[in-house]
């Protein structure tokens, strides 16, 4: 289910106390009941206060530099709103996967490059004072150029995906906002009539 995938990737959502005790217990051992531990929140290290009806955004992730969002699930969530939330969760998960992997690869390849260059120069990774030896910017430029050209295709694919997702999410947000606005207007009209 999307929930499990999302949990793995570090995105998570929480439900209001009234609706979900049973469903959360039933949908897997990973998630405990509402009042008590929230394993997904614990995974992210944060539990939003129960009275809050909005999403919460956290500090940037260590690997991907993206900020995780804990989405709010209202008790009467319409199908449209659920589609929006799931689209956002999916986008968050996909972005997290891509950037975490990409940044890790960058760091790793950078280390390897520095190591190989230092070896070629006959130097050690750490000098006498124990400081990590680095190459200057001009030497690193070869690595940057190489890394960029190697990953260009990956980036083109990711760009396409990201633009599509971004447009879809924004369009859904627009639809949800429109529906909510109409509902509010209808309610006001009813109040005025009464």
């Amino acid at each position, binding site marked *: 289910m999307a929930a499990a995938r999302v949990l793995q990737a570090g995105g998570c959502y929480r439900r209001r106390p009234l609706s979900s005790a049973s469903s959360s217990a039933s949908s897997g051992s990973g998630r405990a009941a509402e009042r008590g531990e929230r394993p997904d929140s614990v995974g992210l*290290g*944060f*539990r*939003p*206060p129960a009275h*809050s009806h*909005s*999403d*919460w*955004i*956290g*500090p*940037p992730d260590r690997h*991907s*530099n*993206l*900020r995780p*969002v*804990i989405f709010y699930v209202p008790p009467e969530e319409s199908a449209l709103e659920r589609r929006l939330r799931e689209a956002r969760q999916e986008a968050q998960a996909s*972005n997290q996967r891509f*950037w975490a992997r*990409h*940044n890790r690869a*960058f760091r790793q390849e950078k280390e390897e490059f520095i190591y190989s260059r230092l070896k070629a120069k006959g130097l050690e990774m750490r000098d006498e004072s124990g400081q990590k030896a680095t190459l200057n*910017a*001009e030497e*690193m*430029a070869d*690595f*940057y*150029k190489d*890394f*960029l*050209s190697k*990953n*260009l295709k990956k*980036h*083109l694919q*990711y*760009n396409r995906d*990201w*633009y599509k997702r*971004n447009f879809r*999410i*924004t369009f859904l*947000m*627009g639809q949800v*906002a429109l529906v909510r606005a109409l509902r509010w207007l209808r309610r006001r009209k009813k109040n005025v009539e009464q």
Partner: protein
Amino acid sequence: MSAARSCRPPRALAGLFVWHLRNTGARQIPCRFVHLHHVASNRLITFQYFNFLKRMYVTQCNKDLSQRAKPKSDSVVSPFHELQQLDQEKKFVNKISSVSPVHQSWSEMSSRKELREIKSAAETEDSVIPVGAESKEDRQWKEMKLRLHDLPGILARLSKIKLTALVVSTASAGFAMAPVPFEITCFLLASLGTGLASCAANSINQFFEVPFDSNMNRTKNRPLVRGQISPLLAVCFAASCGIPGIALLTLGVNPLTGALGAFNIFLYTCCYTPLKRMSIANTWVGAVVGAIPPVMGWTAATGSLDAGALLLGGILYSWQFPHFNALSWGLREDYSRGGYCMMSVTHPGLCRRVALRHCLALIGLSAVAPVLNITTWTFPVISLPINLYISYLGFRFYRDADRSSSRKLFFCSLWHLPMLLLVMFTCKKSLVEKEDKGWQGVCALPGRCHPALHPALLPGAASPAFLQGRIAPGRVWEVPVAEVGSDPSGWKKCSRTSYLQT
């Protein structure tokens, strides 16, 4: 511009503003108003100069002692009270459990008790440390709710208000250089329209680039990255700035300026932004984006696209290259990791060659200005020193290809352009030479009048250059006697033009 905030570092000078070096990596349109920049350990200090950013406090960012103003968010306090209480309870419970073994009997179980004591003491310690770290982490979680009093600041950052201000000032430079009488309403409308168009373009740019901005140091504090505003709101804001802005330019100024504004928004958002991640051609597209605002200013004033507009655009186009190429030299790691195709990463030799080439082009373009009657001949002469200096720095950058030469070139470009524009303005060729006036014509049409309806000259005579295509309601223009003759009867005139003999 309002003065700097009160909680600024003592090194800063009152009444001046600088902008953050790192912020100038994006498509930077040059500033006319660089008064001073103060480099503090490779960083410039920004001032928030909008009054609605009421509460600010000093933060210590990244363990360095620079002061950075940050708007205070006060909703963070309440949600964490209960968490802190929970933490305190946990500590208390652990204390009790560690105290109780002490009071038990000192039998042979004492050694085991001691072990338990040590363990529970260790547990207490352990529970204290992660709890402390947790609440610090917890404080970094923010509710994604839009607060109205934060909104102006957020929108200012979303629209890159400082960059917008620079764009508007280049447009006003274009307006000022146009050889027509200065009209304040037209000027204000053009500036406002350009500013709104620029806000829209910048917002859409940020909307497209959220995950990439998160990964670059320079841009990781933008509103969409931090979740302070939703993408929907960003798009609505862009639409609500762009549509009125272009409408204002089209209807209030002239359709040509409106078309240029719309084209520029399209070029920036739909060509430059995606192209940044696809090919190095983005730099050239971006240079055109930077060159269009002064052209817009010129067309706003005169209503037509002529050689002077293109020259001014050309000067700005050429300026972009030394400016941007020098800056991007220091950002190669971020560009490489973020997946941006920039010349400095993929074609470093080309990067430096192009920068030098365009520094030299600036000299050439300055020399062309008097030929097109925009400025007098003093302009190339006076501007030669600064053009030679930037070319020299461009040559050093080309030869040395290191960080210090790139920084020198970048800093030079920051003051070079405002100075060049200033010198250009002071050397501007005066509108009408003091000769005998013939006839004054006043167009009384409410809208813009088509040039064809306005007087053509006697057959065989060349029409005065400044009459063609630059008719605006209420504008008064003067025609030299030599060109017209004292009798306007041979002229075709539009029905609502009146003639006054001077």
